[in-house]
């Protein structure tokens, strides 16, 4: 359960930082009058906060899967699935998509429609290419004798990449909505809230994929073994 505990430690750090901004040492029984730092009706970024919290939930999901995988490989290290080289290319594609989304945000901030359109198209193509690449990896592994109902390590590979792919698909749908709005002639700066939320989601998809990729390579177990040796 090391993976999920490490992830929750990160969440706890973020929550702790936020709580530290909330004047938890205040003495509300002594304060009367409208507090200057209070909430002021609907906040300015509910969509971004919504996406941020959802990203934490998604992180919990992948961290749980990671924990279960690490536990399994602890028992059967010889069953690790040898990942085809295509996975590296897929990782690069997701990295590209994430970078492009950051360009989309920058373009929406500065109000440049051509940059925005170009970055959106690039991010979409890279994301679809990532998904297609993952399907190719599945096909290659199945043909190589690693069936879904074979050894648990192979089952984990399909489950983890499948759930991650589903989340990428959901993101692509959201991206398509933004592309449609942009094509329909919406003001570039009005797209900013949606674009920021989308970019955050994409960065999270990349971060979780990097974590899962490392675990699927067996590096997580190797790292834990190293830690145990160091502690021992």
């Amino acid at each position, binding site marked *: *359960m090391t993976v*999920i*505990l490490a992830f*929750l430690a990160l*969440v*706890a750090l973020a*929550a702790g930082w936020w*709580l530290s901004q*909330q*004047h*938890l*040492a*205040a*003495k*509300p*029984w002594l*304060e*009367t*009058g*409208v*507090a*200057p*730092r*209070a*909430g*002021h*009706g*609907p*906040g*300015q*970024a*509910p969509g971004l*906060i*919504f996406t941020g*919290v*959802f990203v*934490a*939930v998604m992180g*919990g*999901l992948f*961290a*749980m*899967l990671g*924990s*279960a995988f690490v*536990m*399994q490989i602890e*028992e*059967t290290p010889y*069953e690790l699935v040898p990942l085809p080289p295509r996975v590296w290319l897929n990782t690069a594609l997701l990295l590209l998509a994430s970078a492009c989304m950051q360009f989309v945000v920058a373009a929406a901030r500065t109000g440049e429609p051509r940059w925005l359109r170009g970055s959106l198209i690039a991010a979409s193509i890279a994301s679809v290419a990532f998904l297609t690449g993952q399907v190719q990896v599945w096909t290659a592994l199945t043909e190589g004798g690693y069936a*879904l*109902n074979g*050894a*648990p390590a192979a*089952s*984990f590979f399909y*489950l983890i990449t499948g*759930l991650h792919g589903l989340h990428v698909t959901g993101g692509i749908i959201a991206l398509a909505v933004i592309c449609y709005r942009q094509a329909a002639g919406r003001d570039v700066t009005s797209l900013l809230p949606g674009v920021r939320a989308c970019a955050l989601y994409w960065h999270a998809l990349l971060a979780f994929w990097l974590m899962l990729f490392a675990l699927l390579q067996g590096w997580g177990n190797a790292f834990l073994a190293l830690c145990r040796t160091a502690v021992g």
Partner: protein
Amino acid sequence: MVDRRTDENVGLPPREVADILPPHAHGWIGRYVFSQDAKYIAIQYAGTAVAIGLVALVLSWLMRLQLGFPGLFDFITPEAYYQFVTMHGMIMVVYLLTAIFLGGFGNYLIPLMVGARDMVFPFVNMLSYWVYLLAVLVLAASFFVPGGPTGAGWTLYPPQAVLSGTPGGQQGGIILMLLSLILFIIGFTMGGLNYVVTVLQARTRGMTMMRLPLTVWGIFTATVMALLAFPALFVACVMMLFDRLLGTSFFMPALVEMGEQLSYGGGSPIAFQHLFWFFGHPEVYIVALPAFGIVSDLIAVHARKNIFGYRMMVWAIVIIGALSFIVWAHHMYVSGMHPWFGFFFATTTLIIAIPTAIKVYNWVLTLWQGDIHLSLPMLFALGFIVTFVNGGLTGLFLGNVVVDVPLSDTMFVVAHFHMVMGVAPVMVIYGAIYHWYPKMTGRMLNDAMGKIHFWVTFLGAYAIFFPMHYVGLVGVPRRYYEIGEPAFLTAPVDGLNAFISAAALLVGAAQVLFLFNLFWSLRRGRESGPNPWRATSLEWQTPDTPPRHGNWGDALPDVYRWAYDYSVPGAPEDFVAQNDPWVPDAQEGRL
């Protein structure tokens, strides 16, 4: 929309964003069926939760009939008994308690208590309910499929949960249970994101986090915990569904069943236990924290006294929430874990007692020298405190490895968690309903019926679960259809089991009186007025009772104080509402 107060004459900071009324359906179906109004969604959540909870109540009666009078009822077969146990547990923990605290009270109270017009994403909120309803229907459908519902126990431990020896294991029962849980988690996530974002983003002007009523703190923290804990159950359910349907072996070791080698192999059943309890233990606090928050508010209002140690109460809620993620393996002491792990989890388990004890002391100190009104909400709140302390004390037994091992899987455990996680939160649910029913309907619940309901429920619960501790101590195992022959067990417990069963039937019947009261008072209850309990928090200050769509009429309220200004010296009344600009040292008494 116009601000009630202009910024120049009271020096208020300007609103960051214009006050916008949420979308409002005008047709009957849009307003009452596919409603996006959190108040209606709350009632839909609570109604559905109570309906499926009644099914679980009847199942508990059937279980008790078998345990109290074994062999008397032919239709209760061993298979049926296990199905009753499983469905009772899962429905009560997930589909009733979680849904009613977060989906019911969360939806109704969060927007009102933080001074918002509605949840931030009303459409997603509506979807949340309909997915929850679908989850309940899928679960209920398992009663009607061949083989019936799963009988794997509410913990659904593999490998037995998906094998033919378990009722529903090789039929549709386990599949529908797993599908239903997956749907529940998806639905809850939609709602939970809404609750969190609403608390973070939609608090009205003046409502700092440290001015929130503890009810909101409890629901908010529990929601955050649920959002982080439910993925563990989600993953476990998906993996087990794959094992059952697609032949994977995530949780399945190599097995021989009825002399036949199965195709499974290499999986780890213990991994499921880790995943399940990583959700399962926070789940206890997902139910308890809203209860803690609500009971704090009930006590303050009905003892006419500010809550003792508000800051400590907030910190304790947050600390309990955080600690509850590192105690899960105390449910697995008998799974063969390394003794050092047992020691670690026993220590963290006992550390949780510290913030919990702070809360209990603070409730008692709030009551100390308060003007205690023994109204129905107060009675239930007191019932909760007593029951929670009793249940918590046996938790100290079970948190210790050496004591837990002999008591594991006995009726002592059943008695413990029913006290702490069954009776105690249910007491709060009732107290909360008696407390907020006047705001929801404009009428008071009948007091005489309520008193009968309280005393029968409270005393009856003790008649059930006190002797059950003893039954467990003498060694009666849980989840046994019948004890069988050993005289050293049957002699002392036979009479007790019959007594417990009779008490369970009586307590169950008292809940029918409560339901009758709910409907009877809707028409015939005494009119309550807007604030019958003279409470300070914002939900009692709405311009209409019950609150209309948008909650606040033309203008959002401004908040000037915390939610616990009771019996303030010099105040015109014995309470000062959160949106009342009265200050003690101002020239004219008002800002």
